[in-house]
């Protein structure tokens, strides 16, 4: 029988929401292969995870404190072997992308990365060429590793009753990598990949993000940015939306002063409603926008903030 191992991600002992999107993908896979879902988390958050999954295993000791790919992949692969997992499912976050291939290599498994859909027990859809093509890939190995594009799967619901949490003893390998430091980008706004509204700025802002941030705060939105903005050092890398940055699919995406390079579109095309505000009527962003406004963002955004405030 198939056993699907969901690999959870936690930060400071709290479960990351991306795990719950990955759980939905795991549930869809379980429907195709008749498997049972178990979960493993390296670090805390086991209790939180047990609200969603019946069998939760946690690996906790000081050697796993930092999320080093070498040690965390070793722990997950060890868990997968002990539980005789046939499928390992993990969200395609920076953490998931870092460790999942190493888990696959340890298990001799093929890896389907950043999947958009579960087609069958061994076939998955994924984007290629910056989303210009959608491939169906087949993993031919007995054990499979799957990373999940979180925006394509809803957040899983809590289970009727809480599951069991049990410790899993795993020896940490001697890592050849040492954690030095983490500089956190702190923001009071919602996280980009989790927000239901995103306001993004591009080169047209000339680095002045005040109108973007002001509108974002009126809408309770996250702030995003195009590659040009991040490359110029105007905004932190964490805010980049696109093929190589974050993929977002909010209810409402407002692109201001963004021309709409294919690499940017790859990161936001899945949004429900897209608004484009740009001075250049020929900007490619208008081709994917539900509502386009040819205007100077420095005039239009403050006006938009005022109009939205009036509605509230």
């Amino acid at each position, binding site marked *: 029988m198939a056993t699907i191992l969901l690999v959870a991600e936690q930060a400071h002992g709290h479960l990351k929401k991306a795990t719950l999107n990955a759980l939905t993908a795991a549930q869809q896979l379980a429907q195709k292969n008749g498997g049972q879902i178990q979960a493993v988390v390296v670090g805390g958050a086991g209790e939180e995870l047990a609200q969603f999954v019946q069998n939760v295993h946690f690996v906790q000791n000081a050697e796993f404190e930092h999320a080093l790919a070498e040690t965390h992949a070793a722990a997950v692969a060890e868990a997968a072997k002990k539980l005789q997992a046939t499928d390992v499912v993990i969200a395609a976050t920076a953490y998931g992308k870092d460790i999942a291939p190493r888990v696959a290599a340890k298990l001799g498994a093929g890896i389907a990365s950043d999947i958009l859909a579960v087609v069958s027990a061994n076939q998955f859809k994924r984007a290629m060429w910056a989303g210009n093509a959608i*491939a169906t890939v087949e993993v031919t190995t007995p054990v499979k590793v799957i990373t999940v594009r979180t925006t394509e799967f809803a957040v899983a619901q809590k289970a009727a009753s809480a599951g069991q949490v049990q410790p899993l003893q795993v020896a940490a390998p001697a*890592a050849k990598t040492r954690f030095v430091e983490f500089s956190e*980008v702190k923001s009071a706004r919602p996280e980009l990949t989790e927000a239901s509204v995103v306001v993004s700025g591009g080169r047209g802002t000339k680095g002045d993000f005040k109108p973007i941030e002001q509108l974002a705060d009126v809408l309770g939105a996250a702030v995003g940015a195009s590659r040009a903005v991040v490359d110029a050092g105007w905004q932190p890398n964490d805010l980049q939306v696109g093929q190589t940055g974050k993929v977002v699919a909010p*209810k409402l995406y407002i692109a201001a002063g963004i021309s709409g390079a294919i690499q940017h579109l790859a990161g936001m095309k899945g949004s429900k409603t897209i608004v484009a505000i740009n001075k250049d009527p020929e900007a490619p962003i208008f081709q994917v*926008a539900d509502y386009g406004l*040819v205007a100077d963002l420095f005039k239009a955004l403050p006006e938009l903030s005022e109009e939205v405030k009036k509605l509230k």
Partner: protein
Amino acid sequence: MKILVTVKRVEDYESKIKVKPDNSWIVTEGVNYRANPFDEIAVEEALRVRDANMPSEVIAVSIGSATAQSEIRSALAMGADRGILVKQDGFVDSDAVARLLAKIVEKEKPDLVLMGKQAVDVDDNVTGQLLAEYLGWGQATFASKKESLESAEEKAKKPGLMLAADKKSMKVVREVDGGVETLDLQLPAIVTVDLRLNIPRYASLPNIMKAKKKPIEELAPAGLGVDVTPKVKVVKVEAPPARAAGIKVPDVATLVQKLHDEAKVV
């Protein structure tokens, strides 16, 4: 130091990508090819690390058809010292690529392997990590630096990867969710690079001429003892769902009214 850097031949992102009518792959006729942009950043970084730590050598490796010679030549024209081409026509999955690279690493024994974090054709983002595990090495994915691409450090072409004085380890800044992390890697190690590590140089005409004389060794997967049967097969390629055409609105008031009454999102 010996640095191995990978260069994949990919469809130019400026080219229009169309799916074949039989859904087997994309149309390749009329498409321009070039080196994967992330790999160019890896080559640039390899050259900077080499030049700051002479004597050192940079070897550019590609896996692909005979035409991938031209992407190796581009790396040589940027300044890499020699090339290796593992000749294999058709689709090779990321796992086979990693196992082929592992064989080349065993042969060449580099101190550092630099790779793009992903190739912009299959957008897989797994090969560097797979290679690290097959070799039992440490890894730093998504390498970046704290200084911006418009900083004085970048203009001076300083390496973003910080090699220790004893050359036995290297500090790497990585872009992760929620911020930037710094790792200290014991060498040899794998580093996959992100967009903001550097701005790759253009090859000068004299260097393009010089590159023509640099050696490119050709190898075959069979000669390396690697079975390239894919673990992950591509069974179908389809065009993405198209978005319905939108409308232009004349002013902000109309926009807000549409968002409120029609889309019901504000």
